[in-house]
């Protein structure tokens, strides 16, 4: 993958959110519609193309924990709000490569995490669990060794304590388990096919209607 080679040449150990999602999208993993902009003219183009409501995020390979640094503005509904958010984020960012990611706001209350890690003995392993703020708090996660078969993917989703979140609950549709399985299997394949990828975090994967969408992602390389 060119993205990875380029980042390694630049001496980096992570891909930015934008690059990470380009990589996922290249493997047909559904990601948010988004554009990377670094001036106001491009911002207008992006807001028109993607459409409100939007999320604006500071985007650079140097920042991985955006929430803590005040670099995310959500539920942007007008050009005026977009302009203000863009300028605030650009001011708050330090570092050489500044840009703002303009992203569709995916609606859905259910947040999951899908990840990849490289185990010294087992090789690439895929993780599934509750996402967003619950990932760290509840640590409700399960692992499978790549390559995954469909049954592995289905089982690992049932393995977490909170697996009922995937059912049709509280008026929400049941999550599309086939689509989720496909992502889990693909993440394992990415690990097997790309030696240089050390870890992947896709967090959150939001269930929008019944379909999973990768809303934030981080790829660690070495």
């Amino acid at each position: 993958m060119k993205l990875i080679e380029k980042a390694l040449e630049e001496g980096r150990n992570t891909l930015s959110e934008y690059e990470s999602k380009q990589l996922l999208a290249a493997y047909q993993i559904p990601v948010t519609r988004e554009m990377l902009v670094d001036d106001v003219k491009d911002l207008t183009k992006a807001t028109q193309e993607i459409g409100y409501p939007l999320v604006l995020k500071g985007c650079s390979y140097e920042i991985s924990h955006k929430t803590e640094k005040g670099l995310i503005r959500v539920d942007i509904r007008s050009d005026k709000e977009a302009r203000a958010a863009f300028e605030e984020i650009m001011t708050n960012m330090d570092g050489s490569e500044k840009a703002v990611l303009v992203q569709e706001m995916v609606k859905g209350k259910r947040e999951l995490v899908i990840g990849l890690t490289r185990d010294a003995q087992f090789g690439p392993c895929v993780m599934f669990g509750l996402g967003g703020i619950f990932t760290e708090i509840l640590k409700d996660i399960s692992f499978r060794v790549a390559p995954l078969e469909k049954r592995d993917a289905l089982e690992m989703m049932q393995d977490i304590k909170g697996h009922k979140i995937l059912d049709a609950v509280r008026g929400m549709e049941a999550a599309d388990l086939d689509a989720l399985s496909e992502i889990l299997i693909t993440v394992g394949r990415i690990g097997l096919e790309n030696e240089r990828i050390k870890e992947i975090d896709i967090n959150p994967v939001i269930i929008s209607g019944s379909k999973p969408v990768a809303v934030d992602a981080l790829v660690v390389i070495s």
Partner: protein
Amino acid sequence: MEKIAANMDPLFNPRSVAVIGASDNSGKLGFHVMKSLTKGGFAGKIIPVNPGTAEIMGIKVSTSISDYDGQVDLAIVVLPAKLIPGVFQECADKGVKGIVLITAGFKEIDDPAGAGLHDEIAAIANRAGIPVIGPNTFGMINFYADLNASFTPEFSRLKKGAIALVSQSGGISHLLGFMAMRMDVGFSKIIGLGNRVNVDFTQMVDYLMGDPDTKVIILYLEGIDEPRDLIETVRKYRSQKPVIAYKTGSAVVGDQASLSHTGSMAGRHEVYIGAFSQAGILNIDNTETLIDTAKAMAACPIPDGPGIAVLSGQAGPGMAACDVCEANDLMIVNFSEQTQQKINEYLPPLALRTNPVDMGPAWYDSSATGRIIRAVMDDENVNGILLLIMFASANIDVLKGISNFIMDWRQKKPFITCISAPPGIWDDEIRRLEESGAMANYPTPERAARAMVNLWGYKKL
């Protein structure tokens, strides 16, 4: 390696066993190993080896293994570590088929000389095709050969059974053995792997899958060198014999310095658990449930579905069992119309007649109790039965009344019980029913239900 696999059989079923480092001094392990062999009733030839003694426990001693005139199949070695390379070479020259190396002081010690010795003896054993259990192990026991090749003679008190234990810990093996004695659970083999020269979990699973005495394999592990090999091996035999694993070490956390959440949460433990499930190994997280589950798997068929009937002599234990079932994906099913009609005939309307059935009003009437159990057994909605009966003076005959047809029916579906009485009252009857394979009995309704949960959990893997 092929020769090592071929020599596994004589290792576990030797006709002659040498104890290298045998002793008549009870302060030495060589004494206890001799005691295990002799008291354990080993019928083959026992050859104590010790250059300084003429006779141990009434058996003539050889000064060295090469000095002994005859075939030696198994050598149990209890000499100090530095002597082991020489002993191994002698064993290789003598044509010994298998070795149990009890001695410690190899790669597990801080001194790098230990690792050097380890490599040295591994090279000798591999060249000669000798499978080695150990080093740093209490040994192994093959109950069906009356072979107690360990330093704990009391292991021979265990009953013969269908469970094989392969363990990385001597302490856990002893603990499980003692628990099993109290629970009247039997084993086919117990193997303490120790620090593993050339017999690891993989080789043991491979061997035990073909062992006619073993129906269930339980593994206790802390961490192993080649987990992928084990996974591949278990997968190869998928669903031939249940493999249950208890892996400790969940407190060890992932890489805290990791940049991603996935990396920081991926402890070795979590990855092991995931990989085991993938291979069809049932994960268990404590010793009690480990032995309870193995006992159920040895006695019961695997259920076809999650539908459970809970029949209790008293309502409370039934509720306790239902709670465990329902929290763990088993279903307390509705009976078929036909079954329900029968139960309604046998029980007065004041009782809870739907599932879970409170047989309270019929508890001193063993024929009514029997008829209810029989009706439920044949119900197609029911995949497994939990029967819970607490003794009372008025129902003392109930067990006798139902035991014959339980025995005839013999586990057409998993039949798990918590039948409990003061010591001495029903013990013989319960033992008779368990030994005949008619039921698996547990001290509490929760443990009985948990055993059923795990049978279904295995089926779902």
